């Protein structure tokens, strides 16, 4: 509720609030919907309609690392489809899915704005350009190694 209060003065505050909730909790929990409806004087259907409209808002928590992979035209011209296939095989996960160990969620997206250095991938908000299969494996291997080091501590 403190998140809602923080944004109360903004007009059209629902999107900023949903972003803040997802940032804090990893997803938009079902329980948040009636709370937001009450606080913003909207119907629950209104809030549900907004949450379900936008690709970014999740109803369940993602993996530890979110891999956004561009599959728009400029990246297609540089092999993005093949890279997405590679990622699905190497992580053993489907598009929009999360790996069994909860390490990675794979999200195909349309355009990360790095179209002259395609294919582009964004991992946990960090943009990478010219990502071929080898570089992709190196990036994900680094993250796994970091996670293991943290778990060991």
């Amino acid at each position, binding site marked *: 509720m403190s998140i809602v209060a923080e944004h109360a003065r903004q007009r059209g505050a629902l999107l*900023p609030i949903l972003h803040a909730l997802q940032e804090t909790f990893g997803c938009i929990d079902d329980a948040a919907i009636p709370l937001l409806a009450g606080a913003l004087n909207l119907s629950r259907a209104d809030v549900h309609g907004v949450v379900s*409209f936008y690709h970014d*808002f999740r109803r369940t928590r993602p993996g530890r690392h979110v891999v956004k992979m561009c599959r728009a035209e400029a990246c297609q*011209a540089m092999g993005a489809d093949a890279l997405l296939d590679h990622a699905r095989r190497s992580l053993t996960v489907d598009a929009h899915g999360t790996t069994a160990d909860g390490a990675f969620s794979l999200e195909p997206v349309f355009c990360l704005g790095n179209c002259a*250095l395609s294919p*582009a991938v964004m991992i946990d908000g960090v943009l990478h350009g010219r990502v071929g299969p080898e570089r992709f494996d190196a990036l994900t291997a680094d993250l796994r190694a970091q996670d293991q080091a943290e778990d060991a501590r």
Partner: protein
Amino acid sequence: MSHRLTSIYVPRDAAALSVGADAVAAAIRAEASRRGLPLRVVRNGSRGMLWLEPLVEVATDAGRVAYGAVTPADVPSLFDAGFLTGGPHPLGQGLTEEIPFFKKQERLTFARCGVIDPLSVEDYRAHGGFRGLENALAMTPAEIVATVTESGLRGRGGAGFPTGVKWNTVLNAEADEKFVCCNADEGDSGTFADRMMIEGDPFCLIEGMTIAALAVGATAGYVYMRSEYPHATETLRHAIRLAYDEGWLGENIHGTDRIFHLEARVGAGAYICGEETAMLESLEGKRGMVRAKPPLPALQGLFGKPTVVNNVLSLCAVPIILDRGADYYRDFGVGRSRGTLPFQLAGNIRQGGIVEKAFGVTLHELLYEYGGGTISGRPIRAVQVGGPLGAYLPPAQFDLRKDYEAFAAQGAMLGHGGIVVFDDTVNMARQARFAMEFCAIESCGKCTPCRIGSTRGVEVIDKIIAGQDVDDNLALLDDLCEVMLDGSLCAMGGMTPFPVRSAIKHFGEDFRPTTASPSATGIRAGDAP
């Protein structure tokens, strides 16, 4: 040697960061301290020569000298080669502004991008920043609108509507409150100029929006950012805070009694929110559903109030118009396309990046003289101009002059100036299928031709690719395209037929597997395991 610290520029643009600019900056700092050499590292925007990123520049007496693409491993050898005084090195590119790709450009909008520290008001002012706003503060709203109208500036978001005419409508609307909204939802593949401007020269956008507000009598504004651009959003929010701190935004702009409040809002991954009325709905906290027009947003826009909605590049062209005058800007360009457009070379291109040129440059010049052909070394087979809703053009049309009317006459659109290059391994039937698939995924669902038509389009193209009743299904597809074109509420459904029809028209062999060209087999260069 002077006593000034040597300045080294390492871009903080997201594209530069994506290929390791932060690591390069850290390596330069570490190497300098190891050698006991004091220097100043400035994190600038990008010069737009993206194939050379990370592009490191050194300020010398002769001008800025460029080295690229630099990796952290190159840094010790750069010091050994005396790069602090512009010494020769295998990565040396000479004086930045003499690099052929850069030298022949006409940079008005991007004049400061990559040159200054994007988060320094002082640097911005030292390079002509806020002079347009200072002039505007001394003018009446009608005079500002007249100047923009006379400049010939047209909306850079794609539609090319005259900016001054739009502003005049908002100026003349009676209301207790008006808004200025910047559409920074740059969702088209092959476009990144908005992002680069916001990361490389954010005060320019802030200044342009403030001038727009003065021109129409608005007191509040929003920039609608993409969630895919976290770095740009962070940069813009930082710049907005600095502008407030230094009196360029808020209650008393530059010591006057003029008011303008500005806030950056972030979308949530919906492409359709780049359509102006869907963007307004989203800013109001709703689903990004397209509104029927009329009423025009200029009369009933955000929260039902008169609203200026402009693209980033339109607003970023405004400060120089108010600074140098309408004539100065209008003197660039051809016919009814005045000024410059930052073209963006993307996809399979050797030298990708920003080429800001006056209207009238041809695709051929852009693709070969600037772009240097494909990076794969194979021939260019197709380019898509103007984003996912833009037409695919074959090499036979590369002599087309880049201006709004010449493109419209060819059933294509110049759009945002984004150009995506494909080599001869592309399968155009698959690209046509993708256009329909993209529309099916991103349609807001309000009108039937777009919502249902796109899904039916994918199905029909799948049948064509499978070789099923090809002639009948091509006729059906053409009919479907006609319905979407005529019956859709906005450009999403209304223009998806452009890439589909142009692919069929210019690359018909890819739709007929029986008379197949090698590329019609559906196998692409990168598909092998």
